[in-house]
């Protein structure tokens, strides 16, 4: 029961040896003949899962056939790419490819809209693909977990057009997506749901405890400023951060303070009943002097 997984017309059977595998294939063929369903052999697949470590040889050769069903290297199961080592690699590759493609295609749009619009697009288009990896993440070692988190940040920066070397803290603050917590929650929920299913019960609705995030309006200028700060000061060859620039009589807020200020203006604007557009302009008004100043400094040299 545990080793037969069904999701509507998507079926998966986990077998522990090859004779069993053949048995199952025969049973399925018998059944499908009797019930007028046609097994689509080309789209079905057998995937051999092997232990990660150790050099045990695989029993089945990729590209060969077992009773007409091809042995594959990876398979897209319920939207996630899975390989024989259960690694996150294939899915991550897929995400990267998709994200690059989308950024390339949406370039004219992304370039012109405000920062929070870009963030929204990322949330809608890319984040769900990471959610699929919640289970994998739970079992992975520290370094692979780190790798996943890095990929998340990378695609986020890609979408928001932030430079590669914008500091992590700022990005995390903007992104507001803690994968550690999220994956744990998803994984636990899935386990709870499965327990309920086994007991033939409907799981009780989990009350979404997520704090309703305050909507902060980030204008395009913020991204510009953050990117400029990563540039090297032409005179001293160190990054143009707030601390350094004060030496050149340019007073910038630190990134942390900058974001705080943005949320403050947004909050005030909202309580005054301003429209989103007005708030955005207000925030932009606050940031653009810094941008101008930095730009002048950078081009002077």
């Amino acid at each position, binding site marked *: 029961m545990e080793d*037969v*997984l069904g999701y509507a017309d998507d079926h998966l059977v*986990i077998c522990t040896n090859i004779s069993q*595998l053949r048995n199952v294939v025969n049973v*399925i063929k018998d059944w499908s003949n009797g019930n*007028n369903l046609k097994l689509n052999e080309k789209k079905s697949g057998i995937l051999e899962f092997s232990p990660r470590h150790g050099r045990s040889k695989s029993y089945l050769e990729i590209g060969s056939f077992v009773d007409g069903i091809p042995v594959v290297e990876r398979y897209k199961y319920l939207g996630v790419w899975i390989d024989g080592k259960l690694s996150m690699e294939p899915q991550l590759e897929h995400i990267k490819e998709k994200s690059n493609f989308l950024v390339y295609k949406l370039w004219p749009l992304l370039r012109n809209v405000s920062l929070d619009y870009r963030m929204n697009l990322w949330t809608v288009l890319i984040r769900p693909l990471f959610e*699929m990896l919640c289970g*994998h993440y739970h079992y992975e070692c520290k370094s692979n977990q780190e790798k996943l988190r890095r990929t998340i940040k990378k695609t986020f920066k890609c979408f928001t057009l932030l430079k590669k070397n914008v500091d992590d803290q700022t990005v995390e603050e903007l992104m507001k997506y803690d994968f550690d917590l999220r994956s744990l929650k*998803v994984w636990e929920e899935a386990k709870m749901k499965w327990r309920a299913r086994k007991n033939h019960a409907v799981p009780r609705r989990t009350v979404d405890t997520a704090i309703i995030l305050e909507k902060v309006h980030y204008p395009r200028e913020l991204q510009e400023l953050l990117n400029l700060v990563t540039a090297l000061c032409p005179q001293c060859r160190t990054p143009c951060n707030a601390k350094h620039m004060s030496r050149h009589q340019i007073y910038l807020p630190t990134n942390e303070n900058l974001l705080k200020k943005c949320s403050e203006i947004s909050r005030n604007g909202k309580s005054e009943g301003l429209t989103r557009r007005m708030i955005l302009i207000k925030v932009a008004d606050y940031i653009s002097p810094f941008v101008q100043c930095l730009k002048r400094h950078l081009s002077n040299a």
Partner: protein
Amino acid sequence: MGVLNKPCLTPYRSYVDGRSAGSTYVYNVYNNVGDVNNNYVNKEANKLSSLTKACEGNTLDGCKMKFKREQIQKVLKLKVVSWNVRSLNKLSKLKKLFEDCSDFILLQEVWQPDPDVCYLLPSSMMMKTRPKGYVGGGSMTVWNSEIISIGDSFSINQDSFISKYIIASNRFIWMSSIYINKGTKKNFLDTMASIQEVVPEEEWPLLVLSGDWNIDISALESESESDKTMKQKMKRALAVKEICRQMNLNILCPGATRKESSINFIIYGSEIKIENVISSTMSDVSDHCKWTFDIEIACPKAKNSIRIPNRKLADSFTVNSLLKAREASDFLKNIENRLRSVDMNLTKELKRKPFRKELLQRLMSTIETDEDFRSIINDYWSGKALENEMHRFSDKSRDAFDFLRRVFKYHEYNRRDGSIINKVVESNGTVIVEKEEVDKKVVEALKSIQLKMDQPYYDVHEPFPRLEEPSEEETEDLFNQLSVNKAISFDGVTDIIFGRNWREEACRKLKNLWTVMAERGSKIHQIHFDQRLLPLNKVHPQVPKPQECRPIVISSPLVKLLEVRIKRRLEKYVVEKLVCSQVGFVPGSSITVNQTRLLERVRLRTAHEDSSLRKHVFGLFIDFSNAYNTVLHHKLFEKLEKALSKEEIQLVKALYSRNRIRLGNQCFTPNVGVAQGSVISPSLFNVYCEDLYIDIMDRAVVLGRCFRVR
């Protein structure tokens, strides 16, 4: 060269005098074709003329029909020669031109042809020259009069003209031999503007503009931007590229055509394919290359008017019928009466929105100002994006959403099925465009899956069962399970009755729907059970085969309401009794359940704590083709006995015996497959599949000893 026929003098004279300089003359006076163009007929032409001859014996109408059908399914191929001749005054040049049999000859810079040469030209030609005394310029087109005749012609600049050519009586293209004397951006834009003026927009895909543009199109690929002349060249080339892109035209340049630069190229529309471009140097007579190419004109597109269901009318029908009714049977009667008043036809013609090519207009308006194209395009898109963002949280958010949807429609990652099928390709390669024929093919393909001769067939309608009338709360619960704003079917009932405004009233009045069905089920009009088939193209940009269609079926809200009655019962069975391996469409389960289960079960073996116990496992992923559409009804009903009562199964039977899939004039009642778009189908399929799991666990012995929890 043989004996020349004497030409009629009038047009020739006027040309020599140059009285109306800069205008075009048609020479249609040579009735006998001289020996120059004896071989000026290619195989295709022969075929076509023999076809026309063959038809002559029949009645006129029949002949036309035959001819059209033959033509419509065929890709037309024509051979074209394009050459900048640098004065047409030598016989040797003419000889070179006519030596390959082509259907079109496009010449540029004919200057002022010699009178002797003009005698030799075939009758089917048109040319435009500069006034007398001017050396250079002019263009000429010669066509094969066997299959081509000329329609309207218009002058588009000092040296060139464009004409519509009718080919084989029912196809046409716009062809022009272009010569731009000075290849500046202004001259180019002027020429294109005149073309846009005379050629209607929907005929742009059939444009072929070939000739000497005097703009080096290869400049775009060069990298040295520093050079001033290079910059100028790049600007011009960019103008050509961008205008063509906005007009959805392609550019084909076979390589350097004059010395190093490629100033001769072909611009052609999307319905045209160009093949076999051969360029040959003619260094002894002209410094330009001559090239020959084949153009292929695609099959003409179907121009059927698209009829879509009229939602507004249907909504008003539903609401008015509901208001006037006292209970369900009244409601049905009212709806039927209203439907009769419009002849059971609730469709309206889809109005096509005229294209608005804002960007093109803005680019074309730079004739005078000479702005940079790149900045205009960038400005345009910034404006669009900003506008989109402005609209996002205003009352125009719908526009913003539509814009985004349009953007994503063309920039999706793994593109999935898109358009509704309006033409299909048969196995022998012929494309069918007539709507009735297409409908027939699609329905036939679907019939081959969903209509099995060896299965019991519904020749009579099964009676509806007598079910208890639901209480008020139960009815409300039923209504709550149905969603609104779905596509509508043939009968005038829309899901507006499930919406917030009318739900209460509908609940009260339609409570006895099941009883009404049981009492006068045979008298209920079939139209309520007709399901609208929406065939989607599985292989989107290509023309699909009839089998490559994803059938979407839309049933009436009334049917949905009838069957939702047993949804809760089915769900209860699925949760409480169904083998728990199946989690799809089970309330309270999701795909994450299966994803984590897979990980857990595999890792249990491959990542065992004790490394000596680690072993390989095999995942068998199964995919059934057309799973939902191949369910056998009688087996389904058998299997349903463990989940539902007799009356409830009878309800499904009654519905399935009446469900008729309809597309245009084609319809059939399937006897295989669960009803598409029905709210209970997923659960029905789960029940149908249950014994597969039991079989696997009993017979294949997964995991040593397997146990069943019941």
